[in-house]
């Protein structure tokens, strides 16, 4: 059976991730409540504003259910999603799920005028990476595997069943990263 993959739809570019999952051949479901979480085998936390998502997770008592979900099932975080999955967040210090052993610095490249589309290397082939007010990964724990780098910093990291990107693969037509996540969800379920 095809895995059911949720996209956390509190705020951000969740719609772009739904389209990207469709390109990777998976069924995507909006997740806004703890009940919705119970319906899915894996979850994407999209780009958006991490402070807004944290506020809504707190208001709706979703923080613990999400952490519990991540102990059992795969999560892929892009940009704000990477910030939420990290164990330590800088600039400023803020709460996070701590599901991956990472230190992430918010708005590390500057403001919107510093946003950029860069070429990176993915599985030995060129790929386009869209960075928007992007964070940077400053430290990767011993179990983390760096899958891609930009300016010598890790930008795509896998740790066990989870994965984070500081850029936005959902804003390109390249489905490889979403396909990789769909594969991880299949293996885990």
């Amino acid at each position, binding site marked *: 059976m095809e895995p059911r993959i949720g996209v956390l739809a509190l705020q951000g570019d969740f719609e772009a991730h739904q389209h990207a999952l469709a390109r990777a051949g998976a069924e995507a479901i909006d997740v806004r409540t703890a009940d919705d979480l119970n319906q899915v085998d894996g979850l994407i936390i999209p780009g*958006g504003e991490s402070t807004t998502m944290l*506020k809504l997770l707190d208001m709706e008592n979703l923080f613990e259910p999400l952490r519990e979900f991540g102990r059992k099932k795969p999560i892929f975080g892009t940009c704000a999603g990477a910030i939420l999955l990290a164990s330590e967040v800088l600039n400023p210090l803020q709460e996070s799920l701590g599901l991956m052993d990472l230190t992430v610095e*918010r708005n590390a490249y500057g403001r919107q005028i510093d946003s*950029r*589309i860069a070429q990176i290397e993915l599985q030995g082939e060129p790929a386009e990476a*869209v960075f928007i*007010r992007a964070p940077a990964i400053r430290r990767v724990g011993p179990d983390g595997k760096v899958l891609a780098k930009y300016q010598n910093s890790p930008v795509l990291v896998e740790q066990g069943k989870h994965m984070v990107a500081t850029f936005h693969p959902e804003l390109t037509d390249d489905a490889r990263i979403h396909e990789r996540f769909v594969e991880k969800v299949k293996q885990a379920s």
Partner: protein
Amino acid sequence: MDFQNDQFRLKVGLAEMLKGGVIMDVVNREHAEIAERAGACAVMALERVPADIRKEGGVARMSQIRVIREIMSAVSIPVMAKVRIGHFTEARILEALGVDYIDESEVLTPADEEHHVDKHDFKVPFVCGARNLGEALRRIAEGAAMIRTKGEAGSGNIVEAVRHIRTIVKEMKQLTVLGKEELVHEAKNLQAPLELVQYVAEHGKLPVPNFSAGGIATPADAALVMQLGAEAVFVGSGIFKSSDPERRAKAIVKAATYYRDPVKLLEASEELGEAMPGLDVTKMQEAELMQTRGW
């Protein structure tokens, strides 16, 4: 028109990140901190909220740089700021300052009664207001990377934002059923470039995110325009002219996420205190309307 160039993709990309969120008008650092704490996905810096501009009159201009700078250093979320319609020098100043988005806004006093800013020429992205599809497409042709309804700013009355979002959505739907030769005729009626008309006909939506602004005062107002097709909301006077801004701000953030869930909307609507005072738009003089500014 090239929507696939990197610069335009990055501009639209940031608008994508704001979807499902609330962009709040703030006039100082304290407001900005309250907005961020309440869950705003961005703040809009301006000199006075629209309700005060309306009351006090005079020329409304871009905010003081010192205030925008303070707001930028106080919060970690994107900071937008307004310029007068056609005032490309105010826009250059804000670009040099490094704001994340510029709103070329009818809420300020227009600087040019014929031309809008050539927004393609800027690295910083722009949002513009629209009352109908023709206006929206003309602004996109000029380089706007996000459209919002104009509504009637500072009125606390949702009726104009509803009219505008319904008009835009209806006009888009109509294009999807027309033949190729009919689209040429529609481009003439809409006074918009044919290739943008063709894009909307093919996709049933704008090539940039479509948000709503102008008169949103309650969580129910925010959910209403989102159910009608808006992808995020701007709230101006509605928050800081209410009796309990922080609580109302949080409630509108919740409503923008759960806009289709009546139980969550009920929760968001409890214990809010007084909303801002509202104005009857039908009793306003033509000269008092802000939505008719822009061409």
